[in-house]
């Protein structure tokens, strides 16, 4: 039975590794300028994790096979080097490995979070509320009008709580249910939550940020491929959480201008 367990462990370990090696279920293709840093880090980590996983499972299996009863003769033997060798190996090898992962991985994180958006980045405001994302563009004046939460009225389609009657800057703001952006243009996303916590997750763009009620947060990114992608909510926000999604359309600059004009006319 010990030998069967050993074989089972090895089979399970190999079968588990196959879909990873074959990339059977993988993230959507990366369409961002920073995503390759994350993807490379993911691959590096996968190699280290994979090797550790397979080595540990195989070693466990080999020792189960070799050292199970019945063996009434012979003495108990000690692993060469004893505990000292293993502890030192753990501290040195694993210590170096995880420090390296941490050091290299922080570069991708810094790219997303520590670098400010460029001065030419296009600002888009996004509001998350049960159970939809809404987007606001500043319009030709380039300014967002102030928000008045007490004026939010979904029945009247005043989704952001704007007061164009009194706030000049709000008059040309464009509010949409889907997000369109020009390709290869840096976007500065300004995020706030209307009611409870939500999250902005765009797997294709390699970005992920919670919306925190009470906090104004921001992200910046650049999309490099034209197409239609999904923005999904990943922070449990209530019964409609599974369905809370918006589409992100990455367009050519010309198409984006046309889209924006059309949206402005429809306000």
């Amino acid at each position, binding site marked *: 039975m010990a030998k069967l367990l050993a074989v*089972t462990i090895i089979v*399970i370990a190999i079968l*588990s590794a196959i879909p*990873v090696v074959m990339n059977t279920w993988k*993230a*959507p293709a990366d369409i961002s300028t920073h995503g390759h840093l*994350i993807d490379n880090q*993911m691959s590096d*980590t*996968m190699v280290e*994790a994979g090797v*550790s*996983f397979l080595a*540990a499972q195989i070693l*466990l299996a080999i*020792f*189960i096979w*070799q*050292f*199970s*009863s019945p063996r009434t003769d*012979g*003495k*108990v033997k000690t*692993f060469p080097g*004893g*505990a000292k060798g*293993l*502890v030192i190996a753990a*501290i040195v090898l694993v210590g170096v490995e*995880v420090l390296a*992962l*941490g050091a290299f*991985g922080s570069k991708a*994180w810094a790219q997303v979070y520590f670098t400010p958006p460029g001065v030419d980045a296009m600002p888009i405001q996004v509001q998350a509320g049960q159970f939809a994302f809404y987007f606001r563009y500043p319009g030709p004046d380039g300014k967002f009008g102030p928000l008045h*939460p*007490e004026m939010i009225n*979904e*029945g009247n389609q005043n989704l952001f*709580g704007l007061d164009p009657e009194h706030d000049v800057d709000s008059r040309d703001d464009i509010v949409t249910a889907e997000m369109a952006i020009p390709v290869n243009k840096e976007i500065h996303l300004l995020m706030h939550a*209307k*009611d*409870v916590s939500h999250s902005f*997750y765009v*797997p294709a763009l390699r970005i992920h940020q*919670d919306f*925190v*009620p*009470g906090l104004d947060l921001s992200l910046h990114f650049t999309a490099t491929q034209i197409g239609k992608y*999904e923005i999904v909510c*990943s*922070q*449990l926000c*209530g*019964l*409609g*959480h*599974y*369905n809370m*999604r918006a589409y992100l359309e990455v367009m050519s600059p010309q198409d984006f201008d046309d889209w924006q004009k059309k949206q402005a006319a429809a306000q």
Partner: protein
Amino acid sequence: MHETSAAPAPAAQHHGPPTTFISKHVFSLDHKVIGLQYYGLALVAVFVGMVLSWLMRIHLGWTNAAIPGLQAISPNGAPGGVITPEYYLQLMTMHATLMVFFVLTTAPFAAFGNYFLPIQVGAEDMPFPHFNMMSFWTTLTAFCVLISAFFVSDGPPLSGWTAYAPLSAIGKVAGPGEGMGQVIWATAIGIFCIGQLLGALNFISTVLDMRCKGMTLSRLPITAWAWFITSCMGLTAFAVLMPACILLILDHVAGTSFFIPSGLVINDQLLPHSGGSTLLWQHLFWFFGHPEVYIAIVPGMGIVTHVLVTNMRRPMLSTKALLYSMWALAFLSYMVYGHHMFVSGMNPFSSLVFSFPTLMITIPSTIVVLLWIGSLYGSKLRINSASLFALGFVSMFVSGGVSGFFLAQPSLDIMLHATYFVVGHFHMVMGVAAMFGIFSGTYFWFPKMTGRMMNETLGKTHFWLTFVGTYCIFMPFHYLGMAGNVRRYASFTDDYLQRLIPLHQFITIAALFTGSVQLIFFYNLIYSRFRGPQASANPWEGTSLEWIMPSPPPWNNFGGKDPIVYHDADQYGVRTSTGADYIMQNSPESAVVVRDGD
């Protein structure tokens, strides 16, 4: 090797033998009965939690499936037997709450710890038997309060076991179950915290004050240490969760705004709250929540080590290194909690700061795994149900732990946060591994607790089907996560998730199968309790003090005569005058260690 005792004389702690049915089996002061009561509670909780997971998995694989009988149980939650999105989240919240608190914290720690800690230190009972009895009944009360959430009009909360504010704080405007259900949940957890604090008090003082003559700290069995370390964590962690729950309840019933900022609008109504912090809940919860997952696993590590050492017929390569690693895990567990909050909106620099100890915690985790594996080398491993589950624990802990390499890095968390990758990680490293620890402890200690042996054929069958089955369920979770499958979704409507539904269906079938297999274990428990073959005092040839007493033990453990201890619990692989390869802790015989080349 003789050592004179440096331990203090045990505090006088005598309660007379129980005489009535009530004092023997219901309101018992006996730590052994209390331990069994906790075990029974955990059994009920795991059954309910498992059924909830079946309902969740059926719905995820086949969203429009009408489940027979469900409409009768919950006409609002499952009209026509089809689970609504809110009911899915409510089932999920209760599944997780039951499993984390009433199974994983209760069985390895409160159940086995209560039963065996006093015995293993050589005491007649814990120093505060009345507190101990209260801790069980408090925990049972918490369980009943929690279950009552199913029966209020709107049902249980849907905010997950993590209950993030403001969803969990603003009341029923947030969704079904968020009114009364959430208050009931927070009350139940608050009561649970009290039970845990009382229990931790007893465990800590048992180890410090109740050790018999000769039982120095260095001679404590590893399980006793594991329970002691866990209690220290419990005291500090639950002491933070309890006030957090109180503040949450106040936000619901007293109009406070601890977790609710101003300017929130829901259903077109501006909420009247202001001044609170959304992230405050997360900090409080995870300061508890991360140590909690180590509270769930450290007793299992102790149990598995204890079982493996007995069945390998040799001590660990270094019990000291294992012990220091467990302390390191406990200590570091308080430093890493922010890794649950990498993209939460806290300062992104904090994320890097929390990432560092999270990566470092890999080191003690690796040490314990290498010690288990390295100790197998050259051993005389005996295969039985208990040792199979112990070995399975090691495999599971490796599998579940390795995904931690990814989640510890904020840059990768960008892709993996709140996906099934996280769900796979914690189910394997905490859920399944701890369950294997519980199974291993059960098969190992059942003979002592009941005086009868469990059926080995059924036990081995239970192991094989569960081992393969749990891998079939939880390994694919990682693939789903890598593909970006967000968690806590009642169904998968997004375009990019459609191709993953067949994998979900495979997981559901594996889950239903593996869940059913647990009936074998349950049957074995009941059948063996009444019809199992008689067990001797020491069927596994163990060294620690539980094996010196009859099976089952008398009410006062050592018959009124405290044992005297001469050795640690690691005297295996030794030469003795009787030809046995082990020396029990209370034997005055000197140990002659027999190793390579002797």
